[in-house]
């Protein structure tokens, strides 16, 4: 009987660990959007994203949010124009929600289904690949989100009456820590 009990515990583990929640916290991030114009190539950078992931029974729900006004393209006039076209005063946050299996932490590439809220619109991006490297409790994620302005009903901004391209890819570089 004792052998049976030991075998049961060996298979199912200590009861305290069943369904135990783990959390991930975004430690450091660099988000860079790229806008292409015949006269300019513009990169807007933000290091202000905040994020958290909660894992429960094998599934992890992540939320990342960043203020629209935190992106810096090196020109205050252009940044204000970008905030205006992205309706950033009315919808000040960009949020990204993603659900991943907890086992994804052991893979080198994650294909994530993203739900992005931006400019008062919600867009879904399926199977976006991210490179993942883990070391201890730290995870480093890199990739690019193939966003388009029209996905969020944003009219491409213009300079000297010439509009930018519709594509606005966002490079993602994030370091997460498991708690």
């Amino acid at each position, binding site marked *: 009987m004792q052998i049976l009990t030991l075998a049961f515990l060996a298979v199912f583990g200590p009861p305290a660990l069943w369904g135990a*929640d783990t959390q991930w916290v975004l430690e450091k991030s660099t988000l860079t959007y790229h806008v292409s114009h015949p*006269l*300019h*190539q513009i990169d807007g950078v933000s290091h202000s994203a*905040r*994020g*958290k*992931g*909660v894992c*429960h029974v094998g599934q992890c*729900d*992540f*939320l990342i*949010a960043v*203020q629209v006004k935190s992106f*810096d*393209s*090196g*020109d*205050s*006039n*252009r940044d*204000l*124009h970008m*905030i*205006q*076209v992205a*309706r*950033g*005063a*009315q*919808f*000040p*946050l960009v*949020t990204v*929600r993603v659900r991943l299996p907890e086992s994804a932490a052991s893979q080198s590439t994650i294909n994530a289904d993203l739900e992005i809220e931006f400019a008062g619109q919600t867009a879904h991006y399926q199977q976006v690949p991210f490179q993942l490297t883990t070391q201890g409790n730290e995870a480093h994620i890199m990739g690019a989100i193939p966003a388009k302005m029209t996905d969020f009903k944003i009219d491409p901004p*213009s*300079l*000297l*009456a010439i509009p930018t391209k519709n594509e606005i890819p966002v490079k993602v570089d994030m370091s997460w820590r498991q708690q």
Partner: protein
Amino acid sequence: MTPKAATMLALALALSISDALWAQAGIPTLSVTVSDPSGAAVPNTTVSVKNLSTGQSIEAHANASGEYTVSGIIPGDYEVSAAAEGFGIKTAKVSITAGEKQTVNLVLTAVSPTGAPSLGDLGFTPAQAKGSAQDQARLDKRSHMLKTHQRLGLITAAPLLATLISSGGAKGKNGSASGRELHAALGSITAGMYLTTASFAIFAPKIPGTTVRGPIRVHKALAWIHGPGMILTPVLGALAYDQRSRGEKIHGLAQAHAPVAAVTGIAYGLAILSVSIKF
């Protein structure tokens, strides 16, 4: 009676006496107000008040307005927490001194039924997450005016160039009365369009808290050259026109008309380039 029992009895007695009486008597009182991020009262809130030195605590439900008051509370350090179904727990520490009335406001944040993180979990306040239609309208107006400024600025470059070219027919040996008339007319059109263009930038709404960075600084600095230049040039041009019309050689201040016009034209061109070319 043990000290613990005595304290509990004191707390129970304290709760049975009206707040007004305690307040009149200058007895320490702790008021707890519980609300959601919008400021609305959270019903069925459980409030707990724990004395941090003795570890003793009392627990009660806040009223329909989300308020709970402990009167006659013993001075000391306390931990006050509030919890309600569908909301996270909120805790605050408070020090009560003799004869003082302390108020603690606790704002409860809703939690997702699935346990997924919320914006509150990321530390964003409701004010940060909530936008302002008024601010957006100000930005929209600003962008609209600056777009008009850009377009008019480009259009104004045409009469400006024409004015500079026509100057050849208004001065020197080749100068004629009709040449001066044409030059003056083009100059007037340029000045009028320039002032209209400038007004769209000058009167565009300002966005508080914005630090000017990047090429726009050069663009604005150049405006301090071509702006006064666009006022001086026609004034000096009118002087020169009068002198030439009287058959006089251009003299005095009017001699500065051509150099001022050249500097103004160059500064204007550079101002357009400063926002067109990345450097």
